[in-house]
């Protein structure tokens, strides 16, 4: 991270972020619109991820448009860049694998708890 501007020099966007990043690189892209799209996308994604993480006793928070904060109930926190690093961090905090094929997770999602 640059100490002057607080920006990261991330050399590659995770594939889940590519649609917003690619749009920003297109000719005639509007930087204001890019920031808005990007922020909206990240906040919405944090909402979805939170519903999944609740089953594992974890929470995620979008942090200043550049990171995600993953926390457990004891206050342990991991700072991650994108969804590619979020799942391994959540697994470390939960102490068990986070498997979307797990029927217990399906039941929790359907119940909404």
């Amino acid at each position: 991270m640059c100490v002057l501007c607080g920006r990261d020099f991330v050399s590659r966007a995770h594939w889940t972020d590519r649609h917003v990043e690619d749009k920003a690189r297109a000719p005639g892209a509007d930087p204001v619109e890019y920031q808005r799209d990007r922020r909206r996308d990240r906040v919405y994604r944090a909402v979805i991820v939170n519903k999944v993480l609740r089953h594992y006793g974890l929470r995620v928070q979008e942090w200043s448009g550049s990171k995600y904060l993953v926390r457990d109930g004891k206050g342990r926190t991991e700072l991650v860049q994108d969804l590619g690093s979020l799942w391994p961090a959540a697994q470390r905090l939960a102490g068990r694998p986070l498997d979307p094929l797990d029927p217990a997770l399906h039941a929790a999602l359907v119940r909404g708890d």
Partner: protein
Amino acid sequence: MTETAKRPVTIVTGFLGSGKTTLLARVLSEPSMSNTAVLVNEFGKVGLDHHLLRRADERTVLLGHGCVCCTTREDLVGALLELLNEEDRGEIPPLDRVVVETTGLADPAPILFTVFSHPVLQHHYRVDLVISTVDAVNGELHLSRNRESSKQIAASDVIVMTKTDVAGAAGGLRDRLYAINPYARVIKASFGEVDPAELLRPPASPTPVRDPLAAGDDRHVSQTHSTSLTFDGAVVWAAFGTWLSMLLHARGEDVLRVKGLLHVGGEGPVLLNGVQHVMHPPEHLEEWPDADRGTRLVFITRGIRSEELLASLEAFRDFIGAEPRLVEANAPV
């Protein structure tokens, strides 16, 4: 740089002795291939005579969480950067294509990962095709004995059946290949005789080349399932990406291939293509390739049943915004 302006990288994989070098030697002799650079692992007995032939000794660097597919091939990085430099300096003509030949046992995923994730390479190269050679004489034996070979078949866009002159009909092998990957084009070649234009034709939209259910009821040891899915409406890309990234984190090594067009509510679909943990950068296309405007998605998995995928997507339905439907699924092959 748009995807189409990047230099295409074609990966040629296949078991030891399955005819990779013979195929390359034949294809590279075509005048149209003169601006194609070739990266090989070793100069084998069958000499490849080509002015843009380079050697890249396999050197892999294991990253963070140590899964085998997410490794960087440092040798390839070096070789591909060197080609860019030479092209810039005008020492070689502008490249039409780079062909990377793998060693027999190699998993193509690290090559994809290297091209997609390197900070410079990802802007100058794209992987357009994975081609596998399968020996019609010993292919069935390899597929039965070796898990690595079904990974190679699942990762392929084109499968070249070699030595068909020796093996005769080889219909059983062809059925077996279709059963593992119903979406790959299968081409027959004896002595490497194939039409380069046919071989390097870009993959069409992901519709099965042949109905996987019609591929016979062979049951073998590889436990590969293929599942074809659609949704009853547009899906929310952010939610689908969340689900898929979670699946690839948890079970990436068993998701041999994900491929398809996803209807996300815009003018065109999102083109998805992934091999194990490694996803091609998803492309948001301007328009649909044909009249069908629905999602079509294929998963080739090992040990994950179609019902499990469907149940998971059902559970995520509220976020994804549409109901998943199974188009077809085939039994373990």
